[in-house]
């Protein structure tokens, strides 16, 4: 479908927020993309766009304006039984937007839907950044301390809490993740926060 939409002046950019290019490589090679597939080991995009989990999507128009802010959308229904999110809904909306068949959201609505970073979020990102530099320089134990501190400062930021698990020797799909998720959800918090309709 993306190929069909390219004729309408559309590009997909995917960014893997992973600890190394090698972690992301299997996904990129499997997709054999004809679009830019980028790697963001330093969580640059997470900092710029206040990304607190994956997958997160944004729509940016021809003038470089955000027309749909951070939303959760999957390309397929593989995870629908877990997330409750249907891929078809986003794909249909995306197609209508690209083909010029849908009116844009008013700017006030886009702003109302945005989730903007707080001071704690940015302190958490600084702790993450220090941890990432330490990790890259072989100081794994020191890195882990800063990753943990980052997670304490921003407990809703799973780009940090789950994203740093590989660097802390923890399986991000395993029991420690499930425990973290369980505690989060039991406290009444959503793991994914898709846009309100």
């Amino acid at each position, binding site marked *: 479908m993306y190929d069909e939409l390219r004729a309408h*002046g559309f590009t997909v*950019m995917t960014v893997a927020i992973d600890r190394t290019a090698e972690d992301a490589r299997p996904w990129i090679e499997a997709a054999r993309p004809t679009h830019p597939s980028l790697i963001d080991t330093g969580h640059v995009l997470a900092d710029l766009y206040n990304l607190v989990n994956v997958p997160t999507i944004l729509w940016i128009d021809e003038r470089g304006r955000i027309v749909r802010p951070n939303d959760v959308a999957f390309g397929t229904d593989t995870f629908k039984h877990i997330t409750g999110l249907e891929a078809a809904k986003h794909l249909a909306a995306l197609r209508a937007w690209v083909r010029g068949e849908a009116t844009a959201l008013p700017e006030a609505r886009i702003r109302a839907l945005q989730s903007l970073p707080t001071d704690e979020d*940015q302190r958490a990102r600084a702790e993450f950044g220090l941890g990432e530099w330490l990790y890259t320089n072989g100081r794994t134990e020191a890195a882990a301390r800063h990753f943990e501190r980052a997670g304490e400062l921003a407990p809703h930021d799973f780009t940090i809490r789950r994203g740093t698990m590989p660097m802390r020797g923890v399986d991000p799909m395993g029991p420690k993740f499930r425990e973290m998720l369980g505690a989060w959800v039991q406290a009444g918090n959503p793991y994914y926060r898709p846009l309100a309709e």
Partner: protein
Amino acid sequence: MAEPKFTIVDRGRVVELGEREGVELAKRAESAGRPVAVDLDERAAYLGVTARERAAALASLEAPDFTLPDLEGRPHSLVQHRGRKVLLVAYASW
């Protein structure tokens, strides 16, 4: 004995200073309101960007530009795609 080195990571740029200078720089950045992470034992600090700056940029609805590498290490920027609609997808192996 030479003064130990202190590493400052500032907006992604890595700089090595003398220890006293580095600690002082980190303290000043923090007093100026920047988010700062310090590790005195490891002699390193990370100077981040304020929430105010990030929030203002996002609230302007101008999509912040960025440059990131692909698997071959080639840099790509968002601004290169000006004139086209872009679906930006962030994902991960975790």
